[in-house]
């Protein structure tokens, strides 16, 4: 297979922009200018940006879903996952390209966990990919720590009064993955079928995982 890469020793062409209909916006051109200068000064390599885009594209909630499905079916893996989230993900070949740690928090009959980053947008990107816009916007960030139950209700999630709500505000090097409860009626599901029930929002903790008939864990 012929390589798509070619060398740009003197200057980079913004290949991805060839054929664009609209002139790049101000910030788009600012990004291009900053990047090209850094590459010219040999502070970063052009290849590194391309490669990191591939890294980012390879990280989606499907990875987290596989981790959850395995935890639901393999008690010893689940124990390792709860003890050291990063190490357990690395067991499954999910590499962490940064210095973050991963803490996995299990939702149960008595405890419901959710994650927020009030100060910015900390999110377990190596295992879930990039966060949705709403997670990074003011309403969720401001209100999740003061009225979590009302915020959850806006997602259609009602937490009974006798269940404890735990809000995790990521502000340092630890990132959080919520382990949602396994839905009822899934005893004979394969791991793949289980993973299909685990969406991004279940791993942020704003909605429970549901089986196709709609039933969450009771």
């Amino acid at each position: 297979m012929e390589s798509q890469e070619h060398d740009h020793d003197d200057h980079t062409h913004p290949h991805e922009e060839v054929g664009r209909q609209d002139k790049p916006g101000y910030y788009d051109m600012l990004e291009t200018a900053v990047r090209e200068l850094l590459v010219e000064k040999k502070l970063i390599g052009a290849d590194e940006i391309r490669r990191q885009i591939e890294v980012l594209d390879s990280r989606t909630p499907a990875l987290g879903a596989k981790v959850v499905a395995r935890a639901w079916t393999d008690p010893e893996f689940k124990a390792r996952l709860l003890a050291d989230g990063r190490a357990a993900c690395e067991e499954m070949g999910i590499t962490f390209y940064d210095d973050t740690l991963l803490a996995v928090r299990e939702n149960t009959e008595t405890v419901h966990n959710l994650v927020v980053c009030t100060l910015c947008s900390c999110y377990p990107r190596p295992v879930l990919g990039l966060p949705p816009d709403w997670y990074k916007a003011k309403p969720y960030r401001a209100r999740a720590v003061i009225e979590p139950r009302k915020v959850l209700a806006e997602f259609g999630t009602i937490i009974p009064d006798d269940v404890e709500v735990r809000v995790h505000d990521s502000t340092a090097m630890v990132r959080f993955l919520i382990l949602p409860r396994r839905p009822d009626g899934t005893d004979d599901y394969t791991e793949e079928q289980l993973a299909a029930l685990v969406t991004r929002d279940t791993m942020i903790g704003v909605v429970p995982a549901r089986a196709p008939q709609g039933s969450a864990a009771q």
Partner: protein
Amino acid sequence: MSQTEHLVKRLPNDIGGLPADPVVQTDHPLEPWEKRCHALADVLDFHKIINTEEKRCGVEALGAEMVGKLTYYERWIVAFSNILFRKGILTPTELAKKMEEVAARWDEHAGA
């Protein structure tokens, strides 16, 4: 007690507990430049040219108006520019000239 201390003491991103609207579950697929910007942030962090915390600090330093009006990645790329100036890695003139070159390149291509 001064009238303006609160502006100094509370960073524009420090919003936990403040009144806010209902959550609107918006999302958008990243524009190509936004993805490049995110990749750039990661690469700068790997090299410790701009680490992730410096980026956060740089975004905060944009001040409330820009933090409120620029979008997420717009804030990042402006913060990177300021940090790179402060570190003496780029100068504002260099960057301005390169931006002119980038714009001219596009204009040439579009006019062709």
